[in-house]
């Protein structure tokens, strides 16, 4: 097809209408008969023994149905919240996997740790009663952030984890890396922090649990990116109810960015409590509650060294990273700073030797897990900052140094020194494209024009790569994942030719209802108006692993294609019968089965009808019906990459940084809907610029979150961002049927180092050489003052 609705068309989104009319159905919009409401009592301390909990006053307040504590969960035999990925220490031993009770039992380990759950007939009654729950805390010293947790004699989050070390892991070859450094002409060193950010999907998390006694059936409505995974964890680990008695529905979900992948305690607790009180129980997070309960992202401290030969060629990389895990291990937490981070440290560069060590650290903070990019932004930021520093130290232009070291198109498939094999890419093409679209040749004129207006202009560049489409099940299993990472699809062709697709991925802004419908239009010639994409309900969809890591098109789309192949093949047999031809002579094209080389055709709709009304039908060899399922397990990760260019203007009087130009050229593989792909890039860029300039979740040494609301945590606003110039250069992924790679995270990965690179470029003439994220006005101003003072001293 490839027409107005097929692959490559910017089809306007089917899902928009309901959202624009206010008819979206998000979890908090759902009110069940006899609905009751839960409010959690949460620890105000980062680390405290729970000496006693007196619930009597709360229990007697009007409308209160129950007040539940950690002891009740223990008595009920509820399981702790599991971690879904375990990694091994350097010596092969297991990492420390501490318990994660759904309600804290003896000890609260971070601000926001839930200690009691109040259920009442109204939200107001639950809120009022929550304030009447009397908890006695024995406040303990806290390991409030990475610095305090790794200091000698630091308070321990877990007795079982000396030094607060969760694991001490490594990858790469230390011997070859040492050898490379021994012969290096230059060694460039950097030490930096990748800041901690709060994900802040605009829809706060919510969960509504409903136990129906008549059939022992549990239903959970939840803000999830992967309802099947949540059901799996509920069944196997936490609620201990078999899957056939458990339905998990993730209706419209208002953004996730990783934070809604994980199985959270509240999901388990509302189901359990529903059985106890005999009514559905709904909890909706408040924003300030979200800041201390949603898993955060990033929070690394790294040291790295780059070995460069006399010709400016990279010959070795050494990295040592401390990664904050928080107090408890969230679902994918150990995978993020290991297999999603250190495996990407080769970036788009040809590195003959790499060795990386990662120590994961427990702190008395909320969990840290995957946030848009998950590990890959940390790798790109470290590497790109290091390459920039190398360029400055060696006196080579930043662009030229990159060109010299990028993997050449002829080198694919390219085996890195950190386990991954890149199938395809053309990093020179995206670099050239970005420079051309940014009109980099005239940058100097722009810089001078800025200077005339009293502004310091800076240019930043990042050439980055990421790994998406997570992931081959056998591979991730060998690396410690407790789940497979395939995807499932069911394509149901109805008798009159319309189509319903049941996909295991989940759309919470990505536009699957349109993109996946385009696959059907492309392959079957059915208009997208006659295609329905169903997702987010474990009772309707065969199975699924959900949406994260930019995997939906690459893995979920491929599963749909596999199911479509089966549909087309079965249709051929039916058409051959109807056309009285051999199956080998039937071709399917543009929605028609045709006897090759003739004008004898059967429309797809006619074949579908015959499948369901099999009067004239090859009934001995072909079953009636046209309904096929497929599971697709990817053969490899996909490797999107590209070049991000940023120009900033700095007001030297105030330190305010304004992003004045963002030009990117990405290679995300084959593009199904360019409009949606561009939109994904925009959103990622905003979050990347947010991290670079605006956002930071700051825990003090006591484990108190300094900025826990929108009054203090700076979310990027419309006036903070420019229009983005987004371009794409396509090399098709070689190992999935669509040739797609994934676009959800590119912006968040590629742009932060380009922003900081631009800030440092602008400040370089003043002598500033380092600044950390976020580059706030005060930080920039202070860097300028410090540089001026240093220059003054020298002079």
């Amino acid at each position, binding site marked *: 097809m490839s027409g107005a609705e097929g692959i490559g068309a910017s089809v306007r989104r089917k899902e928009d*209408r309901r959202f624009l009319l206010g008819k979206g159905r998000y979890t908090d919009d759902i009110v069940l008969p006899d609905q009751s409401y839960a409010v959690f009592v949460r620890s105000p301390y980062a680390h405290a023994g729970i000496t006693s909990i007196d619930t009597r006053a709360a229990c007697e307040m009007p409308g209160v149905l129950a007040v539940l504590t950690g002891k009740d969960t223990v008595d009920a035999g509820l399981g702790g919240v599991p971690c879904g990925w375990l990694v091994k220490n350097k010596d092969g031993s297991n990492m420390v996997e501490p318990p994660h009770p759904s309600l804290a039992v003896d000890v609260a380990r971070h601000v926001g740790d839930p200690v009691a759950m109040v259920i009442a007939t109204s939200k107001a009654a639950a809120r009022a009663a929550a304030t009447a729950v009397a908890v006695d805390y024995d406040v303990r010293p806290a390991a409030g952030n990475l610095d305090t947790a790794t200091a000698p004699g630091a308070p321990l989050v877990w007795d079982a984890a000396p030094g607060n070390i969760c694991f001490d892991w490594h990858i790469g070859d230390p011997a070859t890396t040492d050898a490379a450094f021994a012969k290096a002409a230059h060694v460039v060193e950097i030490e930096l922090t990748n800041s901690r950010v709060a994900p802040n999907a605009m829809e706060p998390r919510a969960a509504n649990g409903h136990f129906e006694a008549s059939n022992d059936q549990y239903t959970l409505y939840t803000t999830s990116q992967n309802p099947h995974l949540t059901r799996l964890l509920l069944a196997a680990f936490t609620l201990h109810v078999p899957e056939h008695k458990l339905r998990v529905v993730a209706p419209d979900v208002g953004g996730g960015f990783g934070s809604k992948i994980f199985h959270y305690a509240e999901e388990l607790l509302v189901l359990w409590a529903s059985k106890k009180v005999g009514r559905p129980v709904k909890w909706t997070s408040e924003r300030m509650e979200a800041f201390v309960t949603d898993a955060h992202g990033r929070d690394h401290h790294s040291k790295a060294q780059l070995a460069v030969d006399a010709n400016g060629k990279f010959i070795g990389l050494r990295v040592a990273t401390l990664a904050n895990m928080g107090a408890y291990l969230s679902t994918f937490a150990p995978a993020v700073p290991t297999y999603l981070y250190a495996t990407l440290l080769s970036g788009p560069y040809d590195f003959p030797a790499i060795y990386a060590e990662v120590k994961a650290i427990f702190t008395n903070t909320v969990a840290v897990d995957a946030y848009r990019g998950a590990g890959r932004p940390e790798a790109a930021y470290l590497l790109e900052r290091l390459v920039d520093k190398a360029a400055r130290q060696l006196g080579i232009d930043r662009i030229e140094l990159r060109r010299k070291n990028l993997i050449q198109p002829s080198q694919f498939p390219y085996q890195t020194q950190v386990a991954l094999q890149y199938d395809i890419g053309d990093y020179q093409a995206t670099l050239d494209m970005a420079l051309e679209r940014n009109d980099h040749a005239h940058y100097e004129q722009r810089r001078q024009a800025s200077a005339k207006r009293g502004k310091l202009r800076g240019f930043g560049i990042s050439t980055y790569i990421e790994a998406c489409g997570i992931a081959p099940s056998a591979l991730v299993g060998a690396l410690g994942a407790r789940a497979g990472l395939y995807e499932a699809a069911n394509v149901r062709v109805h008798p009159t030719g319309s189509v319903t697709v049941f996909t295991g991925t989940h759309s919470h802004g990505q536009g699957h209802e349109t993109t996946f419908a385009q696959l059907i239009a492309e392959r079957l010639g059915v208009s997208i108006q006659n295609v329905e994409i169903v997702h987010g309900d474990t009772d309707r969809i065969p199975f699924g692993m959900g949406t994260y890591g930019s995997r939906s098109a690459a893995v979920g789309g491929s599963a749909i294609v596999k199911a479509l192949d089966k549909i087309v093949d079965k249709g051929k047999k039916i058409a051959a019968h109807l056309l009285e031809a051999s199956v080998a002579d039937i071709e399917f094209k543009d929605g028609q089965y045709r006897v090759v080389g003739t004008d004898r055709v059967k429309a797809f709709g006619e074949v579908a009808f015959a499948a369901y009304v099999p009067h004239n039908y090859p009934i001995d060899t072909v079953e009636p019906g046209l309904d096929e399922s497929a599971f697709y397990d990817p053969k490899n990760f996909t490797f999107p990459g590209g070049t991000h260019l940023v120009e900033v203007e700095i007001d030297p009087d105030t330190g305010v940084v304004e992003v004045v130009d963002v030009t990117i050229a990405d290679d995300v593989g084959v593009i199904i809907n360019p409009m949606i792909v561009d939109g994904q890039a925009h959103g990622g860029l905003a979050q990347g610029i947010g991290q670079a300039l605006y956002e930071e979740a700051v825990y003090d040494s006591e484990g108190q979150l300094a900025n826990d609301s929108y009054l203090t945590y700076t979310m990027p606003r419309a006036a903070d961002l420019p229009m983005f110039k987004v371009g794409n250069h396509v090399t098709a992924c070689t190992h999935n049927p669509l040739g797609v790679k994934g676009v959800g995270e590119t912006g968040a990965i590629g742009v932060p180092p380009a922003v900081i690179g631009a800030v440092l470029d602008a400040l370089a003439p003043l002598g500033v050489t380092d600044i950390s994220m976020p580059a706030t006005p005060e930080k920039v101003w202070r860097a300028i003052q410090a540089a001026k003072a240093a220059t003054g001293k020298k002079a």
Partner: protein
Amino acid sequence: MPKLTLRVNRQTHTIDCSASTLLVEALREQLRLTGTHVGCDTSQCGACTVHVDGASVKSCTMLAVEAEGAEITTIEGLADGDKLHPMQAAFQEHHGLQCGFCTPGMVMSAVDLCKRVKAPSEPEVRTWLEGNLCRCTGYHNIVKAVMAGADGMNGGKP
């Protein structure tokens, strides 16, 4: 509980409502107009924006009783039957929404702007939207949509 009469989307409703009920609570929980969303608790995100006598207001920062006697319009009341309001149409045409959560507030805020300024510039749109947070779009397509929506509201093509 006190009775309250609210005029919402050209219809009159009488509800039982305590004095401390926020307008957004009355809309969502009692009138079941769930298109108006709550994204924060400090009056910053703007997902709850509705029109009170034509002006955009955060319905999380107004008591329901304060709205008595006023003409309230929510996202559900913006379209003309099945026909999208030009601003809604522009948001679809320009991909000004992804997850849809901030969208109702964004659209209501944008309509207020474009009633005041017939052809707002890009900076005017960006500044006006200071009271509305979006986490998905990077605002790029929202800004395009609002400028196109302004055209649409003034008889042009959205």
